[in-house]
Every structure is written in C-alpha cells, then in structure tokens.
C-alpha cells in the first residue's frame, strides 16, 4: 500500500499518468455502452446486469442491462451493453 502511495506521488511529481508506476485498475468508459478495464485481477461476478472485477486495491462493479463480456485477457477486459453505473470499492 505504501509502495502504491509512493508510486502515485512520483507520477504526480513527474507529471506522468497515474497508472504509469501503479498497478491500479484503469477503467475507460465510452459513453454508456462500452467499458474497458485494464490491470484487472479477474472476474468476481458475472451476469447480464452486473459484472464485478477485482483489482489490485479494490473491486469495480459495472452495473447495467444486457451486459456482455466482449473480450478478456490476463490484464484487459472489454464490457459492452447499456451501462448505468460503475461502483468502485477501495480496500
């Protein structure tokens, strides 16, 4: 955790993107129909209305309707459907 904080501070000082030195999840939303999640640690929940993704320091719950897991690799995931919200819970 300390390492994570240090990495964030270093990125800020060097004016680099926050994810440069960190393994934190990066979630990119394209309007309400697509979400790309990077640096994930696997699925924890999967249904048409809710997709739960585990990250390094928490979990992200993508809520919506007709959610589909379009593609998934070891570190990236692509979700499509009618996304109504993303809840992030930091542990």
């Amino acid at each position, binding site marked *: 955790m300390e390492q994570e904080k240090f990495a964030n501070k270093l990125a800020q000082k060097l004016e680099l993107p926050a994810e440069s030195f960190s393994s934190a999840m990066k979630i990119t939303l394209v309007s309400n129909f697509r979400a790309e999640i990077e640096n994930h640690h*696997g*699925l924890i929940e*999967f*249904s048409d209305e809710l997709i*739960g993704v585990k990250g390094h320091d928490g979990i992200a719950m993508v809520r919506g309707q007709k959610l589909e897991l*379009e*593609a998934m690799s*070891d570190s990236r995931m692509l979700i499509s459907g009618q996304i109504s919200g993303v809840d992030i819970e930091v542990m």
Partner: protein
Amino acid sequence: MQRILNKFRGVYKVSVICAQPEEFLNLCARYNIAFWDVRRVNEAQLEMMVLRAGVKLLTRLEKYSGFEMNVIKSTGAAVLAGRLRHRYAFIGGMLFFIAMVWVLSMHVWQIDVYGNENVSDEQILAQLEELGLDLGTFGLSVDSEYLSNRMIMRIPELSWFAVNIKGSRAQVLVRERVAKPEIHDPDEPVMVVAAKSGVIEKIVTLEGTKILDRGNTVLQGDIIVSGIAENISGESRTVHASAIVYARTWYTISARLPGQSMVKEYTGKEKIKTALIIAGKRINFSLNSGIEWPDYDKITLERTIELPMGGILPVTFVTERYLQYEAKTVSITQQQAEELLMPELMQRLEEEIDGGEIADYSYETTVSGGGVTVTLKAECIEQIAQERKFTDSELAAAETETETENE
C-alpha cells in the same frame, strides 16, 4: 475481418458447466484463450464462442480444473478439414477429380472458326483434323505456325490462317483470298443486247452503231447497239459497244396455296429426357428412350461445363424436351391466301427488276381445284442493256467486211 479469419481458423460454440463460472473466465484469461459472445445460461453454466486452439487447450485443462465442457456447434474451414482428415477415399476422390479437371482442361474441346464466308467450317475442320488438330488434342502440342503454313497450301481460298489456344478452346482465325476482279477491256469488241423482252423507252448510245430505237419492240437477246461501227472515212471497225437502254417490260407472276393447311395444336403433354455427353460418348439417363406419340416437337438444350480462364470440359449436359401436338387441318380463306401471297409476289417482282421502276400493277385471284391462285401482273421500266461478246461468226464477218472495204 476478424470474423472472416475466424471462419478459416474454426469457431466452436461451447457450453461450460462449473461451480464458479467467473473463475472459469479468469482461467481462460490467464491462459490467453480468446472467447466472445459469453452468455450465462444459469448460475453454473456458460455458453461462449471459442477458437479451435482454445478448445484444444480447454480440453486439456478440463481434466484437472473442475469444469465440464461440451461443444454445441462448430464451423469453419479448419473444423471441416479436421472432420475429413480420416476420410481417405473422399480426399483421394477429390484429388483425383481436381487432377482430371486440370488434365482435361489442357486439351482442346472446342474449335471455333472465325472469318470465313465462302470456305465452310466443315472444310476447315476436316483439314485441321488431318493435320492433327481435333477435339481432344493436347493444347500445348498445337503448332500454330505449322498449321498456318499447311492450311494455306491445302485450302488455296485462304490467304491467312492462325490458331489461338485459349484454355480448352481453339480459336481458328482465317482470312479468305479476295477473288481477282473481272478486268474490263475497253477495246474488246462487244455488242449491246437486250437482257429482257420489252419496248424500248429510252436509249443513250455511248459507243457502237444503234440498231434499234425508242418505240421498237425487242426480244431477249436481240442486238440493240452493234459493235461494228464506221469511222469518219466510212471504214468499218469493231468497237466495244456501250449503251444505256430503258425498256417497258411486263411480268406475270403467280403463286398458289392449297385450300387446306395443316397446323400444330399442342396438347400440353411433354416429356423431358436428359443425357450426358463425355468426350463424344453419350450416356442416356432415361431408361425408356422411345417416344410413343406420333407427332411431337423436340427442343434440345446443351450445356457445356465452363471453367474460369476460358477452359471447358468435354462434358455436355443435354436436356431434350418433347412436346406432343396434334396435326389439325384448317381451311384457308381467299383473304388469308391473298394476305400471304401478295407480299411474296411483290418481293419476287422487285428481285426480278433489280432496281427498276414499277409503272403499274394489279392482282388477280382465282379459286379453283380446292386452291387459291394469286397472280401479279406488272408493267415496269428497267434497264435491259447487256454486253455480249462477238460470236465467232460475227467476228469473222466483221473482219471480212473490213478487209473488203480496205481493198
């Protein structure tokens, strides 16, 4: 693009049953197994699309990873190839078929002749056959130059000859020799005679001595302008007589139609027979090859298998359609006969006068002996002058006369 690629690589729709479907998807991600269209059927079951390579890996993982996988559907070229892998006879047959198509497409199965008008196709093809180019000849063995030299010698009417082999087609191009034109000798002694009988309407003498004049009646062959003329000193000499002579001519042309005629009335019954012609050998697919109807029309349709790049195979599908009809006798009325015959008579007259003018004409119709006769009577004005060489006796007489005058 990805979808097209996947069609080649082989795509499987699989059903997976496991306690934690999420864990199964994490497992796929960890082993880089590409998947898409994931659908959760129930708490413990998933359906998804996976590539052929992914299925292989999952089959290995299935043994110790606590899930059960079933293939629901598989598509793609790789899948098809995998299915056919152990069907040796099928693969052998396919390879044999491809080899046969390839070998056959290298032979000539069609010869088309272009550019001939007076020399018949049959004559050219017969000579080509003797020189070694026939249906079934190996295309690469055809020597166009050799054929060209031989064909021009064998058929003197040809001035140029070439053969192009395009796939299984041999394109024979010919040019015919232009006939030597008839040389008009202006000094040759000739007479101007009447080509047809008639009454002279107009005469313009260009050379020679005018024998007949306007208003005279001439019979076919009568001399109108003589080829013996006198010069200024009164001496006779033979000349090439020339004149333009228009005469009034008369024609009577008749045509007859019987009072009754046979027409076809189709009954609606038809039979279709099919056959296959392979390299000239016919194979009938119809067991009963006879047609029991007394009257029928036969329409034959032939289709040849064509390959890309202009190739053809020596395989022709033949479809023969037989249409039954009944021959019915119908009466022909006088009006119908006139409508049929009058234009035909007029056409014959126009051909006869060859550019002449029709001054007057009338039709007469007579019904006799169960038939209808239509007669066209016409009065025409046409050119009747025709050159004729001196006969031996005329020439001898002319020479004698000239010699006497000289003495």
